[in-house]
């Protein structure tokens, strides 16, 4: 069930979408003064309060929305997130995520959050079950994988958990983002370049190849890279790009060969360093090499959080936890929203038996991940459509 929303609510909604928090809150209150029984307005208010980290207010507004309409899925989302972010309300949170999973069965985040609430309430088996369910729904759900890795760490220690962290890292798109940042390849254009029509110069070829690689058109990209390497076999950028593409296709030996060559040609090639480090990190027993390369990469691009994360992960592999912690902390300082660094930091803290701080890092990871997803508006739009 969903009720029609008033014009005042629509106004509040528009302001909220523009992140005009103050005016949107005022518009919600104005709408509620006219009609306090509009679940839309309460749900919006909950989302706005959640955006400002005012959890008690968000809980009150979302609860009211659910009282008015028990099918108000966006209100369940806001309520569950408010409980989780506020902390100490895991039991209530479990109930809400259960409800939401029933209202919207294919909502992956509900299962991930349910797992985290179970975990914090010390129901470990149920937590693992929830994360597995999330991965069934979306095999690329990185946070579920990170959580499973953390659960493995708690039970069996770092060596068993490390592959899980690596796998989660691969699911996490931020690592690829680093490569394309380093290669200066921006967001994908609407129309992808046609390899046959790319201008016959180095920069055009490499840029087009990078764009195609980003779009996962590795055949088209390889054609252009090959053309460039035919023209100039010692082009470090082209070698690094081909190493990246080999990595994406799980061809580790070829990737390592290209990356080594790229770094030999140009010791300052950051894309080459990246590819070489990742190639080393994928091979068991080469963490020491990976750490050296990522250390150089972190020094070359100190403002980017991901090289510090990669360095930290290599340090974890070497069981140098204090160095790993320092690198993770640096990554978090550079980007508090770096989910991968947060989970890594949690893992290090767990090795030091600092469970409360580890739990906090996992909660912050969830905080940023759920903020980034913008799920509220998806559910809200569906809810509005359902009623009109």
């Amino acid at each position, binding site marked *: 069930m969903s009720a029609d929303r008033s014009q005042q609510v629509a106004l509040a909604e528009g302001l909220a979408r523009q992140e005009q928090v103050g005016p949107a809150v005022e518009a919600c209150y104005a709408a509620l003064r006219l009609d306090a029984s509009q679940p839309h307005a309460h749900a919006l208010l909950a989302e706005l309060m959640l955006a400002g980290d005012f959890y008690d207010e968000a809980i009150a507004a979302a609860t009211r929305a659910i009282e008015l309409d028990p099918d108000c899925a966006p209100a369940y989302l806001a309520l569950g997130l408010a409980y989780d972010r506020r902390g*100490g309300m895991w*039991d209530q949170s*479990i109930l809400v995520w259960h409800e939401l999973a029933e209202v919207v069965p294919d909502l992956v985040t509900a299962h991930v959050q349910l797992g985290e609430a179970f975990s914090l*309430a010390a129901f470990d088996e149920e937590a693992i079950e929830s994360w597995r369910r999330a991965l069934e729904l979306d095999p690329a759900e990185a946070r579920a994988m990170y959580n499973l890795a953390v659960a493995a760490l708690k039970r069996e220690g770092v060596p068993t958990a490390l592959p899980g962290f690596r796998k989660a890292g691969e699911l996490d798109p931020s690592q690829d983002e680093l490569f394309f940042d380093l290669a200066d390849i921006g967001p994908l254009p609407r129309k992808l370049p046609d390899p046959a029509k790319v201008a016959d110069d180095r920069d055009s070829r490499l840029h087009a190849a990078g764009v195609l690689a980003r779009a996962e058109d590795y055949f088209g990209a390889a054609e252009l890279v090959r053309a460039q390497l035919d023209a100039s076999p010692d082009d470090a950028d082209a070698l690094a790009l081909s190493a990246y593409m080999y990595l994406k296709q799980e061809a580790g030996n070829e990737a390592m060969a290209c990356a080594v060559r790229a770094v030999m040609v140009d010791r300052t090639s950051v894309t080459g360093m990246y590819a070489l480090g990742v190639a080393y990190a994928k091979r068991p027993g080469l963490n020491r090499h990976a750490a050296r390369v990522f250390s150089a990469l972190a020094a070359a691009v100190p403002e980017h959080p991901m090289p510090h994360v990669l360095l930290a992960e290599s340090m974890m592999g070497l069981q140098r936890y204090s160095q790993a912690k320092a690198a993770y902390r640096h990554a978090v*300082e550079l980007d508090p929203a770096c989910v991968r660094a947060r989970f890594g930091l949690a893992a290090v803290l767990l090795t030091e038996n600092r469970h409360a701080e580890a739990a906090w890092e996992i909660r912050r990871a969830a905080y940023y991940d759920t903020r980034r997803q913008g799920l509220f508006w998806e559910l809200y739009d569906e809810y509005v459509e359902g009623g009109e």
Partner: protein
Amino acid sequence: MATNRRSGRASKRTASAKPVNAADAREDAVESERPSAPAAPPVPRRNAAFPLGVDYYPIDAEISSWDDWYARDPEPDFAVFAAARMSLVRVFISWKYLEQQVGQYDEEALQRFERVVAAARDHGLQLIVTFFADDRFSELNDVPWGKRRDPRNDSYLIQREVSLVQRIVNRYRAETAVFAWEAGNEAFLSGFTSGRELEEWAATMREAIREVDPDRPVLVGCDPETLFRASGVDARGAIDESELAVSHVTAPYQAYMAEGPVVSGPATYLDSFLLRSARRDLPVIVDGAGVTSLDYSPAQEAAYIRTVLYSAIMNRGGGALLRRFRDMDTERREPYFRDPYETLVGVADIDGVPKPSLAEVGRFARVAARLDMRRYTLAPERTGVLIPAERYDPPPSMAGLFDPRATLQAYISAKEAHLPVEVLREGDELGEMSVLVVPSAARLLPGTWRELTAFVQGGGSLVVSYGGGDADPTVRELFGIEFLGDYGRRRELTCRVAQPDALGRLEPFGCILDIPHFALLGGGGATVVATDAKGSPLVTLNSFGTGRAVFLAAPIERALAQGDAWAAPPAVRAMLRTIYGALASAAGAALPLACDSPQVEIALFSGEDDDILLLLNHAPEKLTAQLVAERSVATVADVRGGAAATVDGTAFGVPLAPNGAAALRIRWS
């Protein structure tokens, strides 16, 4: 500016010192320990001016019934308190148990209470007797004949309350083991629906007590800030009539202000922030010291207790009461719903076996005992952080939600600059303040702008950060800038230094920080100290009258609070503390020593022959704080004794453990 904070309180100031003086007398009676050196004077076991105590709840197991009220023999527990050098115990009256039938006071209940009083007397402890409390377990006020009427506003029940109070006070008015009477605790007081209702009830209870006992302190046991957050009730009027105040970090307030690890970041400053904001010219006891959840390890609980206790004594606290003695033995059931006034976690486990926290209390007491407040005076606070009056605006105004957080961030920055800092509310007297910080306020009262103008004109230094909306016309004259409008939200903050050394050593930076507003400023005579990436002024400095006015073009304190306060960009934090510190140094409001570690809080107690320096590490990592004094230091020694280290210079280092503290006696050359 109006004078709420201090008006009419001059006469009370003397009265308010009474508990402390009373404690002095008590001190003479307590056992003393003597250091090994034969000629040394005896060292008191406790600090009379900073009593430590614990909330002693009537039941310790959830399966217990209301009539198990203080059924346990308190003697062994009180022996533990005395051994831990505590001097106060707060106990809670059960109206339900005492007056099971109207007008008839149960003799067994009175005997049990007598046993508690006797145990206190026997161990040299004093009681704070709380009449109307809610501990969420013992049904303390659910008198069966009350017919579910509200004891806060039902006239008949209030009559009965007066009767109960007078009976107890009369019985113990000559009892030396009673330190103070408390009308109600915060959980009970949070049930009031208006400040006026609370004020009337508190006045009735106070009069009832005063009729029988004109001397002992009477208090209303709530923190005005946390109570307002929880219930919207402004308790300041009721508290102003008391002789003691309390500050109290509740679980929901912590979730609102500083949700996160309790041994790092803003959570470690929250207790002292509330203590400062609760002072209102009264001695403040830090109430409910301790963690609010079972999430932490015993070592973290101890580290948090250490932080709270040292913060309290370094910020003019009048004592501290621990949240609970024994852990509550909860029922083995799920789900467990957390209580807003969480009192589950104690300093001993459910069997009464002390946890590391209790040992921490003993260690702190040993240090505090060496700090004789009659000989040493804390450096005066001449820097103030202002909580705007808009903080009390109800929704849909967001100021009431944003302002406390922004003020906490400004407070932390001032602490990181090692400034003695006070928390003021708009309307308070500025008194001896030399530097005033108004963080990210959207709106100030018109009278406040006049007061601020006069403050700067008279030589004060002012920092105001833009809080959004239109700027007050005063801004043009006071800050020497032309406000051209709000540029709106930004995702990054960039600082380019235009005038090096104009406000300390500002460093240029660029970082990710969600800035909700950015004031576009035009020239108006002020010096542009720093700009953003596009050259728009970010920090301006204007000389006005004999003072200086700094304007920050963005609500930076609010941005820090609304971002990740545990991962705030270090460069932004450094900018704030550099600006605050530079203004305070120039105004003579800084300490006479500098420290290279911002996470180390410093308090300097000045004496005639020597000074005592307290240092508290707010970080969970060990470090060595490098201190540089303005004059030459001869020796430094631990206040607890031991050999003094010779410095003969201005610089020395102090190693600090994670969340560690040090208390040093400094002799100057």
